[in-house]
C-alpha cells in the first residue's frame, strides 16, 4: 500500500510539474506590435501620410463631388441624397499625428533640417488648413502635444498665419536640403511617386492655393501679407519653384488594391442612379465645351449625340423623389470613361492638387492686382494655360480639334463627334477689359477644370467667390430655405472632450451658436 502511495504521488507530482510551466519575461508588452517610441523607418510614416491623405469623400464619386454639384444622386438608397444638411465635420488631426512622428523619426534617422522635416511642415499646415477652412478657429499651437489634453483654440487668422509660415519654412529647408537631388524620387514610401523637386513645387503650389483662398482677407489683414507673399512666389520661382505642367500634378494612381472608387466600393452596379450636375453641364453646353462629350452621356441616344442640347444636367435642388422618377431626363456619366476600367485608366487622371487650378489661381491674383507689373494679358495667358492643361487631362488638345467617342452609361459607343475647339475658345475668350467679368470666367473655367477632382476645393472656391452660380434654394438641398451652408459644425469629439475651449471659441466667433449658416473669418 505504501508503495502505491509513493508511486501515485510521484507520478502525479511529475505530471503537475510537466504541465504547469511558468512563463517568464515581460509578458505585459504586446508582442504583436512595436513600441511607439521605437525606431520606425521614415518611409513607413511617409507612406502613411501620403496613402491616407485623400479621404474617401475626396476621391472620385465621393460625397464631396455632390457638394461641388458635379454629381447628382437620383436614388437615396445607393448614392444618398443631394442634401447639404451636413453637421459635424471630420477632422484632420491624424495627419498632424503622423507629421509629428515624421519629425521625431527624421531627427533621429536622417538628422536635422532634412527634406522630411520640410514635408512634416507641409503636412502640419495641410492638416490645420483642412479643418480650419471648414469650421473656423481650431486648436493648432497645442494640438498633437501630449502635454495638452485640452488644447486651446487658435484663431483662424493665426492658423493661416502659422500655416503659411510652415509652408514657407518648408520651401526654405528644401532649397538647402535638396542640393543636387532635385530629380531623385522623394521616398519609396511616397505613393504619389513625386521627385524631390516636385514635392517642393507641390508645397509652393499649395501655398498659392492657400493665399488665393485668403482673398477676402487680403486687404484688411496687413500682417498676413497675402498679396505680397503671392507676388513673391510668382516673381521668384527659382527659389519658390511651382508646378510647370500637368506632369507636376499630385495624382492618385489607382492600383489593384486601391481601385477606382466605384469599383473599390462596389457601387459600379448602381451607376445609373446618379446623373451629372446641371451646374457644370449648363456651363459646358453654353460654352460648347468639348469636354461635355467626355463627361456625360446624351439624354436621347436617338437624337443628335453631337448636339449640346442633348446634354442636360440634373439639378440637385430638385426633389430627389422627382429625380428618381425621371432619371432618364438627365445625362449620366460617360460609361466608357468612368466605368470602363477598374483602375480608372479610361477616365481623366485623378488630380488632388494640380497645375490647372494653379494657373487659374495666378490669373485671379493678377486680375486682382496682387502682382505689380503683371497685366490683364498676363492673366489671360495664365487663364489660357489653365484651360489648355485641363483639356490635356481629358486627352484633348486645345489647339486642334479631336474626334471623340460618345458612350452610353453601359460603356457602349454611340458614335463619334469631332470637337469644335475654336467655337469653344471664342466663347470663353478672356475678357481683358472687364476685371469682374474676367474673374467670373476664371472661376467658371476653374470650376470646369475641377470636374471630379481636387475634393471639396470647388465648393470652397464657390463659397469664397460665389462663382460659378450653384443651384440653391431648391428642396433637394434639404436645408431650411435650400441655403447652402457656409461651414460645418466642429468635430463632435472635440465638442465633447474639449468643451470649455470649444464654448469659448464659439462665443468669440459666432456669438455662442455653432451653426452651419455662419461665415468663418476666412469667408466673411
Amino acid at each position, binding site marked *: 500500500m505504501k508503495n502505491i502511495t509513493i508511486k501515485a504521488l510521484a507520478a502525479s507530482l511529475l505530471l503537475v510539474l510537466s504541465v504547469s510551466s511558468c512563463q517568464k519575461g515581460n*509578458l505585459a508588452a504586446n508582442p504583436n506590435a512595436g513600441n511607439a517610441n521605437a525606431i*520606425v523607418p521614415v518611409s*513607413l510614416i511617409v*507612406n502613411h501620410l501620403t496613402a491616407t491623405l485623400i479621404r474617401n469623400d475626396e476621391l472620385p464619386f465621393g460625397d464631396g463631388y455632390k457638394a461641388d454639384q458635379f454629381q447628382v444622386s437620383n436614388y437615396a438608397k445607393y448614392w444618398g441624397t443631394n442634401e447639404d444638411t451636413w453637421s459635424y465635420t471630420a477632422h484632420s488631426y491624424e495627419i498632424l*499625428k503622423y507629421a509629428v512622428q515624421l519629425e521625431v523619426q527624421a531627427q533621429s534617422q536622417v538628422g536635422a533640417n532634412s527634406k522630411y522635416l520640410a514635408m512634416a511642415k507641409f503636412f502640419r499646415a495641410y492638416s490645420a488648413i483642412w479643418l480650419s477652412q471648414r469650421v473656423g478657429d481650431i486648436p493648432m499651437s497645442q494640438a498633437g502635444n501630449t502635454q495638452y489634453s*485640452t488644447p486651446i483654440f487658435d484663431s483662424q487668422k493665426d492658423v493661416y498665419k502659422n500655416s503659411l509660415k510652415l509652408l514657407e519654412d518648408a520651401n526654405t529647408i528644401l532649397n538647402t536640403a535638396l542640393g543636387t537631388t532635385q530629380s531623385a524620387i522623394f521616398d519609396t*514610401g511616397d505613393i504619389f511617386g513625386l521627385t524631390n523637386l516636385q514635392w517642393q513645387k507641390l508645397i509652393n503650389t499649395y501655398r498659392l492655393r492657400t493665399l488665393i483662398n485668403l482673398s477676402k482677407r487680403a486687404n484688411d489683414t496687413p500682417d498676413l501679407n497675402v498679396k505680397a507673399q503671392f507676388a513673391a512666389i510668382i516673381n521668384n520661382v527659382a527659389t519658390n519653384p511651382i508646378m510647370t505642367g500637368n506632369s507636376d500634378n499630385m495624382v492618385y494612381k489607382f492600383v489593384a488594391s486601391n481601385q477606382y472608387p466605384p469599383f473599390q466600393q462596389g457601387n459600379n452596379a448602381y451607376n445609373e442612379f446618379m446623373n451629372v450636375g446641371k451646374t457644370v453641364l449648363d456651363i459646358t453646353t453654353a460654352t460648347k465645351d468639348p469636354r461635355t462629350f467626355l463627361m456625360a452621356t446624351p439624354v436621347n441616344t436617338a437624337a443628335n449625340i453631337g448636339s449640346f442640347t442633348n446634354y442636360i444636367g440634373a439639378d440637385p435642388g430638385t426633389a430627389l423623389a422627382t429625380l*428618381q422618377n425621371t432619371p432618364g431626363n438627365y445625362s449620366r456619366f460617360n460609361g466608357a470613361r468612368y466605368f470602363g476600367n*477598374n483602375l480608372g485608366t479610361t477616365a481623366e487622371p485623378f488630380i488632388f492638387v494640380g497645375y490647372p487650378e494653379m494657373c487659374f489661381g495666378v490669373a485671379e491674383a493678377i486680375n486682382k492686382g496682387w502682382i505689380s507689373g503683371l497685366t490683364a494679358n498676363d492673366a489671360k495667358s495664365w487663364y489660357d494655360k489653365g484651360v489648355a492643361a485641363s483639356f490635356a487631362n481629358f486627352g484633348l488638345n486645345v489647339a486642334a480639334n479631336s474626334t471623340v467617342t460618345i458612350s452610353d452609361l453601359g460603356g457602349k459607343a454611340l458614335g463619334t463627334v469631332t470637337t469644335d475647339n475654336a467655337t469653344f475658345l471664342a466663347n470663353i475668350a478672356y475678357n481683358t477689359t472687364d476685371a469682374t467679368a474676367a474673374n467670373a470666367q476664371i472661376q467658371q473655367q476653374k470650376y470646369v477644370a475641377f470636374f471630379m477632382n481636387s475634393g471639396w476645393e470647388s465648393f470652397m472656391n464657390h463659397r469664397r467667390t460665389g462663382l460659378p452660380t450653384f443651384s440653391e434654394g431648391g428642396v433637394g438641398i434639404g436645408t431650411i430655405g435650400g441655403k447652402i451652408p457656409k461651414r460645418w459644425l466642429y468635430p463632435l469629439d472635440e465638442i465633447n472632450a474639449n468643451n470649455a475651449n470649444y464654448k469659448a471659441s464659439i462665443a468669440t466667433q459666432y456669438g455662442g451658436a455653432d451653426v452651419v449658416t455662419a461665415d468663418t473669418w476666412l469667408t466673411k
Partner: protein
Amino acid sequence: MKQNLLTISRWLLTIAFVMTCGNLFAQNSTIRGVVIDEYNQPVPGVSISIQGTTTGAVTGSEGRFTLAANKGQVLTVKFIGFATQDVTVTDEANYSIQLKSDTKSLSEVVVTAYGIKKEVKKLGYSVQEVKGADLIKARDPNPINSLAGKVAGLTVGANAEMLGRPELVLRGSKDLLFVVDGAPINSDTWNISPDDIESYSILKGPNAAALYGSRGINGAIVITTKKGTNDKKGFEVNFNSSTLFERGLIAAPQPQTEYGRGNAYHYEYQAKDNSNVYLPAGDVLYDNANRLGEYGPRFQGQLLRQYDSPYDPLTGKRTPTPWVARGKDNWDNFVETGLITTNNLAVAASGTNYTLRTSYTHMYQKGVMPNTKLNSDNFNIGASYNITPKLTIDGNLNFNKQYTPNIPDVSYGPNSYIYMFKVYGSADYDVRDLKDIYKGPQGVQDLVQYAQEYGRLNNPYFMAEKWLRGHDKTDVYGYLKLNYKVTKDLNIALRSQITTWNQSRNEKVPSSANLNAYTSWYKFGWYGDYRQDDRRLFENNTDIAITYNKNVGKVSISALAGGNARSFTYNSFYGTTRALALPNVYVLSNSVQTPLSYTWDSKMQVYSGYYSLDFGFDKYLNVNTTGRVDNLSTFPAGKNTFFYPSVSVASAISDYVELPKAISFLKVRASMAEVKGGLTQSNIGTAYQQVTGISTSTLLNYGTELYSSYDGPSYANQNTAAYATYYNNLPSVAYSNTLADPNLKAYSRLSYEGGVDVKFFDNRLGLDATYFDTENGPQIYPLITAPSTTFSARNANAIKTRRSGFEIALNGSPIRNPNGFSWDINMNYSTYKETISDIGVAGLTELPLGNHNYKVGDRLDEVFGTKFQRDKSGNVVYDATGNLLKATGSNSQIYGSLGHLNPDFSFGINNKFSYKSVSFSFQFDGRIGGKIYDYNYYAARQGGTDLSTVEGVIGAARLAEWNSTAVGTKAPTPALIGNELGQGVKIASGTPQYNNGVISNLDQLTFAPNTTPITVQSYLNGTVKSIDESFMISRSYAKLREVTIGFALPKKFLQKSGIKAASISLVGRNLLYFAERKDFDMDQYASGYNSADRTTGGAPSNGALQSSTFRRFGFNINLTF
C-alpha cells in the same frame, strides 16, 4: 501541440493505472452500499451501525460503505438533517439507501466556487442550481441553451445559427466563467456534453464568484460532472438517445410575391444602357451590371426577357417569356428538414475506494439549409481512487471534436439565405430550376454558375454545394487531483488542470460566386477566393488548496487557503487570398494579388492566493469571508498585484425562532464583495482584427467576424506602432489611437446583495428573493479625447455605473403524491437597471456614447435616434417633396429617446405534471418591455420586399402606380400621400426648430394637409430609412420553449430484460412565439446594453440579419442497465 499530446497521453496512462489498481481491491464478501440524498447525490460521512452491536461504518467521499453483516440484522442510518432510517439486511449484497430530509431542518447542498459543496442554509449569497437530468430530454444540442428561462437573473440568448454561441447575460453582465469540477475551462459552450453533467450551479455575480478573481466578475456557471454511479451494485450502463427534427421558422420576414425584381416597375434581363429605363436595351448572356431591388413589374404574365428565356447564342437575342410569380414557395422548396441526433453511452462503476465513469457522446446535426452539417464527438473519462483512506487521486479528461465541411454564415449579405429569399426575395424565378447549378447557356461546368442574375445574388444551390465554410475544432480539458487528508479536519489538495483547443476554419468561395459590391477585389468572371482562420489556445491552472474544518463548542470553523498559478498562451492566424489565380484550388498562395496573412499571439501568467473562512455560531449565524490576491502579467511590474475581499452572512431564523406553522423555513442573507482585474478580454476575433483593429466583415464587406472565448491579455494600454498597409501592398505603420495611461490601475467592482429564502407548508412552497446592487467601477475606460490631441481616446480609471435589480424564484408542489398525481411548478422573475453613477474625470460632466451624451443618473440602455416629426395633434409632418420631414442640426437636435433596450423584466415558468410513470412538462419564458431596432423590417421595407409594401395605403398606391405605367413601359405617376400613419401634414408657415429629435416650436408653425404624392419606391427609400423610430419595435416576447411528455416503463416489465430503467419522451422545442412583430426571433438578442464592452444590442446602429429559430420535434430514449 506535440507537447500537448504527450501530456495528454501521460494523463491517460495515469488514469488507466488508477483504474487497474481500483479493480484489484474490489471485494465481495461483505455487504456494500451507497447512501444518497433526495437529489440522488451521494452523502459522505453518514454513520451506519448494526443495531445491537458496536459494529458500524461511515460512508466515504462517494457516499459508499462496506460492512460485514448477517442476514436479518438491522442497519441504522443516521445523518444530521435527515430522518434516521432502519434497513434490514437481506440476501442482497448491495444496498442503495436514500435519505429523506428532515423537513424541519433543510440541508440542501449546492456546489459553490472551487467546487466546494455548501449547505444552502449557510450561504450568504445567491446560487441557483439546475440538475443536468432536467436538461437532457427536451435537449438543445448546446447544453447552455437549455438553461434558458430556468434561472432567475440568467438570460440565455440562444443562438439560432449552427455552432453559434448563445449570448449569456447574468444580472446584466455578459461573458460568464465556466468552471468544471472546480477548475475554470475555456468554453465555446459546445465542448461540454449535457449527458456528462450532474448539475449546473449558477453563481450570480461577484459575491458568489469572488474566489475566482477577475474571471468571475460577471458570475460563473459551475458544472459538476457525473462521477461513478449511485447504483447499489456499483455498476451502471446508461444510454441516452435523442432525435429531433427541425422545420418551420417560429419567426420570419414575410415577403410579398406580387411584384418582382426591377426598378421603377420595370425589369428585363438586359445590358445596362443610358437610355430611358423603359426602352429595351441590348441583350446579354450575363446580366451582371444591374443590381436591383424588388421594385419591378407586377406579375401579370406579360412577356419579358428573363434569365431563363430562350437565348440564341448566334444572334445574342432572348425570346421573352411570361412574367409570373414562379417562386412564391422558393423558401419552402429550398429548405430541408433538419435533424439533430445525440447518442450517449455512459459506463459507470463505483466501489468503496474508487469511482469510474466513461462516456461517449456523438452529436450529429443536419442543417435546415441544404448541405450544412455538424458532427461532435465527446469523450469523457473520470476516475477517482482512494489509494489509502487518507490519499485520494482523481482525474477527469474531456475530449471534444467538432467537425463539419460546411456550416452556414449568416449576416446581411450575399451569403445569407434570409437575405436572398426574404429581403431581396423576388418570386420571379423558381428555385427548383436552379438545382442544375452549371446549366447552360450561362453555366459552365465547375466555372460559372447558372444563376437568376449576376449582379447581387447567387444560385442558392450553388451556394449550398460550392460555397463552403469548414470548421474543425479539437477541444480538450482535464485535471488530475491529489487529495490528502492529513487529519479528520485538515485536508490538502493539489491539482493541475489544462484547457486547450485548436480550431481551424476556412471559407471556399467558388469560381463565379457573385460578390458584387462587397469584396473589393471581386470582379465579374473571377475564380473565387479562399480564407483560413486558425486559432490555438492553451491554459494551465495549477493550484493547491488546504481546507480545515473544526467545531469548537458552538462555533464551527471551515477554512480554505489556496494558491493558483495560471499560464496562458494563444496563437492565431488569418489569411485570405485576393482572388484565386487557379479556379477550384483552395490554398492561400493561389492568389492573384499578394494574399493577406496575419498572425497574432499572446501570453499571460497569473499568480493568485486566496482564502475562504466560514464561521458558524451555533444555529444562529454563518459568516463567510474570502480574500484574493492576484498578480497579473497584463499590468507592468509594481502595479500588477491587488487584493480584494468578500464577506457574507446568513441566518436561518426558523432554526431559532418559533414561526407560524405555515412557515417551515426562513433564512435571511447579505453579502458584499469587491472584485478587481483588468487588461484582459473575454472574447477574441480573427488575427486580422487583432492586428488591424478592423473586422473581417469590413475587410470582405460581408460575413461576420468570428469571436472565440479567450480570457487572455488585451494589450489595451500600450502606445504601439504596428505594421499596416494602405496602398498597393506597400508597408506602412499605424500608431495606436488610444493613449496609454502609465499609472493605470486594476478596475474594481463592488457588489452588494441581500436576500431571503422562505419555505411554506412543509416546504411545499419556496420563495427565494434577492436584491443586488453593483457598483461597477472605476473601470478601465477608454475616454474619448479631443481629436486635436491626435488620439481618439485615452485610458483612464474612470466611469462608475450602478446596476441594481432583483430576482425572485418560486418553487411549488401544489400536489404531491408519489404514487399518484403530482404537480411541480417553478417560476422565476428578474429585473435590473444600469445607470451612470459617477464619471470621475475632472472637466467631464457627461459621457458621450454613440449619438448621445449621458449624465449621472441616466440609464445606459436608453437608445437615441431619429424620430417622426408630428404636429400638436400627432399628425406626421412631411416636407415639400412628400417625404417625411426630418430634424436637422446637432445631435441634441436630431436625436431623441426611442426607449430602453433592456427589458423591464424576464420570466420563466416551468410546470411538471406526473401521474405514476407518465409525466408532462412545459416551459414558457420570455422578456417583457424594452425596444429593439428591427433590421429585417428596415431592410425588407427598403428592398420593396416586405409584405407590408403591398398592403394598406402603400399597397394601394403601389398598385395605382403600376397601373399608371402601362404594364411597366413608362414612368409611374406618384400615388402615395403620407404613409400607414395617415396623410399627414406639411408646414404651411414658420421655420421649424428642433430639440430632442422633434420640432420644439410647434406654436410658431402652422400646418396644412400633406398633398404631395410620392412614388412608393421613393418613399420607402427616402427619409423613412433614416427615421429610426419607424423601425423600433417592442422587445417583449414570450416563448413556449419546451414541452416534454415522458413515460417511464414500469420496473416489472423490465426485470427480465436486464434493463433497470427505461423511459421514452416526446419532446418539442421552440414551439410557439408571441411578439408584436414576428419577423425575427428576439430571443437571441439577450443583451441590450453591455457595460463590459460598452456595446448595445438592438440599437439602430447594430442592425443584423440572423437566421430565425426553427421549431424542433422529436423523441428521447433513456435506458439504464
